[in-house]
């Protein structure tokens, strides 16, 4: 990494997203309960870097990504973009930032308005952020961007339903890239696609990242995909951080029991090895984020849990040059 990139472009500081949900349902006026979707997540992101975020369903990955874009306002914590604290920012500040942070969604077809042509979908960010551009200029840039993501120019008047899932995701990527942003948040961009198409889309993302110097936050539950694309990986469980480490450190020497359980579930593409492999199956169910366990939230399912895991304050702490873990035993 160069000297310049030592300064993080995005700093997330102890961000919490809590939702007020219905009470116990006995009375309409029963006290509301708090669902802690994201509960104190911090990380830095540097220019040109890819941060993978993994965790099982309901661990707060998507909520975290939406909090970064203020699509769901954060309850507490700070989101600092290029040195500017956005959590205290106005709508105008956010509007300016949206030019630099774009998002790619999970369901490629559902994220495109069925009544807009490809030209309008891809051109919309330009029309919003650069109203001074002429129609011809917008169209020119749309065509150039289509070519860049591998869509033929002739498709410009088509509607989203006329495309395959992979092509729809290319449209989504083109829409995210047309403003030449600095950061793209990818919310499980390939989990709805066929495996062969997944590879194409991921390689396209990597290629565009290299060309444009993008930073990516890549959310997924497929560890193999995350390994392929990420520089660093954040493991989440029940709205908290379990481990944040350089890719190789995480895969070679996982420092948290939850990470180890996740990694043991990756299939090995060798039948002999796969046969002899021991998958460490987690006992019990995911606890409710309305009423999480005290201390370490993972202790109810952790094979190594001790008494102090339930009482001590749990924080992400540095355990080596390359990794941070929240496990007391690491």
């Amino acid at each position, binding site marked *: 990494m160069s000297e310049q990139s030592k300064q993080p472009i995005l700093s997330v500081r102890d961000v919490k997203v809590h939702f007020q949900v219905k009470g116990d349902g006995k009375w309409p006026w029963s006290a509301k309960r708090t669902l802690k979707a994201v509960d104190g997540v911090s990380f830095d992101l540097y220019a040109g870097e890819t941060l993978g975020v993994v965790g099982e369903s309901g661990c707060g990955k998507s909520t975290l990504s939406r909090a970064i874009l203020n699509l769901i306002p954060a309850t507490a914590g700070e989101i600092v973009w290029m040195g500017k604290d956005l959590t205290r920012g106005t709508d105008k500040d956010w509007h300016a930032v949206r030019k630099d942070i774009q998002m790619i969604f999970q369901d490629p077809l559902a994220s*495109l308005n*069925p009544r807009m042509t490809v030209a309008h979908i891809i051109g919309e960010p330009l029309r919003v952020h650069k109203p001074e551009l002429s129609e011809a200029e917008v169209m020119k840039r749309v065509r150039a961007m289509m070519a860049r993501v591998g869509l033929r120019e002739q498709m410009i008047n088509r509607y989203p339903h006329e495309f395959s899932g992979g092509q729809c995701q290319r449209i989504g990527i083109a829409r995210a890239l047309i403003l030449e942003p600095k950061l793209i948040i990818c919310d499980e961009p390939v989990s709805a696609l066929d495996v062969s198409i997944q590879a194409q889309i991921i390689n396209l993302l990597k290629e565009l990242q290299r060309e444009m110097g993008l930073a990516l936050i890549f959310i997924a539950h497929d560890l193999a995909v995350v390994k392929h694309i990420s520089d660093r990986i954040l493991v989440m469980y029940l709205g908290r951080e379990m481990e944040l480490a350089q890719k190789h450190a995480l895969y070679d020497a996982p420092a948290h029991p939850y990470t180890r359980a996740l990694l043991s579930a990756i299939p090995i593409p060798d039948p002999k090895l796969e046969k002899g492999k021991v998958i460490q199956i987690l006992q019990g169910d995911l606890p409710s984020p309305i009423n999480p366990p005290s201390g370490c939230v993972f202790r109810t399912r952790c094979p190594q849990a001790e008494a102090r895991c339930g009482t001590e304050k749990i924080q992400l702490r540095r355990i080596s040059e390359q990794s941070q873990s929240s496990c007391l035993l690491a």
Partner: protein
Amino acid sequence: MMQSKQKAMTAALDNGLADAAVEGRSLWRDARLRFFRNKAAVLSLIVLAFITLACVFGPMLLPHTYEDTDWDAMGIAPTLANTHWFGTDALGRDLLVRCLIGGRISLMVGALATIASVALGIVWGATAGFMGGKVDALMMRVVDMMYAVPYLLIAILMVTLLGRDFYLVVLTITVFSWMDMARVVRGQTLAIKSKEYVEAAHAIGVSTPKIIFRHIVPNLLGIVVIYTTVTVPGVILTESVLSFLGLGVQEPMTSWGVLIQDGAGVMDASPWILLFPAGLLSVTLYCANYIGDGLRDALDPKDR
């Protein structure tokens, strides 16, 4: 020579097509093209335009008026012998002119009350659905209250207090026919609001009014068009009910609803008095339905 000319033309055409293919087109232009490809809808549009023009200009061109009695031809059947092509009613008034004059009222009420109630319903429903929460709850309770109000009672009160007036009739009908649309639109808006493409628009930084008008309303159009075609006959029939009770138009002025009610009373003796206005109303409603279908299909890109 001929051949080369043809070749040049084909080439030019191909170029034209290629240009058209890479040039951006809007939903509305696409929709217009698709609408005019729908034969039933275009035919209906022509028929409806013809009926409208006949209602507007017909009475001026015909030799009779809607209120004068022809003493030589009382209650005669349709005939080509004199100029009473649709026959006359029991009072000797020319039925053709009365149908056209009645059409003016019915079409006006149909168009104005439908536009007003559909517009009110869309704005109310979309706002409630988009805002959600307390605003939504409050706005929908207003709709529930409107359902509970007995509309005839209010109509009678309004006419008694404010006097009989054509626009008052339109207003009364509008006030009591927008709630269905509001409910349907609110439901759809709630569904569309949580779609990923709306979230994507938020993420891009599209402003709220633009999200409503570019992303939500176009996706409501299908259901709105269907409900509008259901609203038109309801509105025209409501007008005839009001007229029947003496709240709408008053003799000798007439409307299709009034003519049908008069005709229904004498259908044994002189069926034409019922059949002509009923036929006109039916044709108009059919046309409205076909145009509605055509619009819905034209606005749905999946139908391309």
